[in-house]
């Protein structure tokens, strides 16, 4: 009863004990239902244990029971911020298994649509990252522009979030009449806005203070954890001879080899003081520059669309081929892989569908990069990983 009777004793008895702090799954800054159990000593993190599975639907099991065309809508619901890219990954895997070659026009539409979706996704990443760090306005600006992209996509396929537009053998419908002009108008409107975001967020003093030099991840760590996308590219260094790890460049699909664009990797000339390669700021800035590259791709795609040959879709085969196919595509959050195993004989349903989530791999690095930082840095680091729980839990 010593501490209770004499308050001065308590004061002397204050120790910084190890404490377990539960963050999430309903925490606003964990981007969905992610639960982090933090082992802290005072404000310093000594261990982070992510717990996930709150959104698990066992989509892979569903994939073993339905035909590939029926599975397309389930892929939307994995990474719901980039549904088009998810559709594309699964379609490419099935097409590779069946040895299909889609027409040029379908490829061009796929590139246009996926890059628009990538812009929309990166806008959410940028806006919510601002929210995590306590600034509200970039979110509103980002969503204003994202809304226009969603309107464009809605006109193409009728849905705003779960598109199921890209399908096996091409895309579901051709682009509607007059759509390309609207898309061009949007790009002309949008391009100057990116510069606005930079003045609003990228160079903001508080933002820089909270992201520069925080959560530094080395290239070796990123490779060992199989990180991909902006997460990995933010840790590379061109001046040390690293080439850009972008699947659109190194394993081009959908004719990406015919487009002119740069895969973004550091170093950046305008990096703020205190920022080092591999920190939160670099991951964020890689995304922002990728938005501009995606706009370039959309413009070139619209140009190619005018002369593209063939139909927007070919008939998919009635049954799958035996064998297996593994395809990775560059989604906004990283390399999303689909592994499809066909059954022997003439079966329409695959034996195994595996969706390898990029966020899952990216999230696994959290513990390694959070150790030794402050509790207040956790939203900054987890936000910079840019996770979507639908994709991690599947």
């Amino acid at each position, binding site marked *: 009863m010593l501490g209770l009777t004499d308050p001065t004793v308590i004061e002397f008895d204050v120790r910084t004990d190890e404490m377990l702090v539960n963050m999430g799954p309903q925490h606003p800054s964990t981007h969905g239902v992610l639960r982090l159990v933090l082992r802290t000593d005072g404000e310093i993190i000594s261990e982070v244990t992510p717990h996930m599975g709150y959104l698990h639907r066992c989509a892979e099991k569903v994939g073993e029971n339905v035909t590939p065309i029926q599975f397309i809508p389930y892929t939307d619901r994995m990474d719901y911020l980039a549904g088009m890219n998810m559709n594309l990954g699964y379609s490419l895997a099935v097409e590779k298994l069946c040895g299909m070659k889609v027409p040029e026009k379908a490829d061009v539409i796929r590139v246009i649509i996926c890059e628009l979706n990538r812009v929309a996704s990166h806008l959410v990443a940028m806006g919510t990252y601002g929210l995590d760090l306590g600034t509200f306005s970039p979110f509103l600006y980002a969503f204003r522009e994202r809304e226009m992209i969603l309107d464009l996509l809605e006109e193409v396929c009728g849905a705003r979030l779960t598109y199921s537009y890209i399908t096996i053998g091409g895309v579901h419908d051709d682009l509607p009449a007059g759509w390309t002009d609207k898309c061009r108008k949007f790009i002309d409107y949008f391009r100057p806005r990116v510069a606005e975001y930079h003045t609003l967020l990228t160079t903001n003093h508080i933002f820089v203070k909270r992201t520069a030099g925080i959560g530094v991840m080395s290239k070796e760590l990123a490779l060992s954890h199989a990180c991909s996308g902006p997460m990995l590219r933010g840790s590379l260094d061109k001046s040390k001879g690293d080439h850009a790890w972008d699947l659109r460049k190194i394993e081009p699909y959908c004719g990406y080899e015919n487009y002119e664009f740069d895969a973004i990797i550091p170093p950046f000339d305008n990096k703020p003081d205190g920022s080092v390669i591999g920190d939160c700021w670099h991951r964020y800035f890689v995304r922002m520059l990728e938005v501009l590259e995606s706009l370039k791709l959309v413009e070139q795609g619209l140009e190619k669309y005018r002369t593209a040959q063939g139909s927007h879709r070919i008939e998919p085969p009635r049954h799958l081929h*035996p064998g297996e196919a593994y395809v990775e595509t560059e989604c906004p959050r990283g390399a999303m892989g689909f592994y499809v195993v066909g059954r022997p004989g003439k079966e329409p349903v695959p034996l195994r569908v595996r969706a390898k989530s990029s966020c899952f791999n990216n999230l696994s690095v959290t513990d390694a990069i959070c150790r030794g930082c402050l509790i207040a840095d956790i939203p900054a680091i987890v936000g910079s990983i840019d996770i979507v729980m639908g994709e991690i839990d599947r």
Partner: protein
Amino acid sequence: MSDILDAKFGDRIKAKFADGVVVEAGDLVEVMTYLRDAPDLKFEMLCDISGVDYLEIDPKKAAKAGYEPHLEVVYHLQSFQYKKRFTVKVMLPRQVEGGGLPAVPTLSGVFKIADWLERETFDLVGIDFTGHPNLQRILLSEDWEGHPLRKDYEFPLEYHGIRGR
């Protein structure tokens, strides 16, 4: 690439296919470490581990299936330097005598991502990774029974008072 492995491991490589090999579970860690470190291979990235359950439930189809019931663990590797992909497979029996799950040695000492990917494969496909530091369910809850991606998995009718169907 499989020729380089052939020269090194000889008949410990059980089978070869396009950009991939099949190895015994006992040789897995050695082969993977070699694939990661050999200067002319450099497969530094373990993209994915998937377990595949080759089993045909329908007895009519099983006769024509063309494979004996077995499990496969498929490792997808990627080389950062040479821009190549490679697949390593391990074949396992579906059932182990005396109960328990079929086992593969863990790769968590070779690739850090293997920690989580193996937990997921254990959770959903039911493969034991011997030597894993923390082999617990990752997506399903800790008290879940069975491994859903097995073909003979039976859907639970009830979970903590929630009706299944």
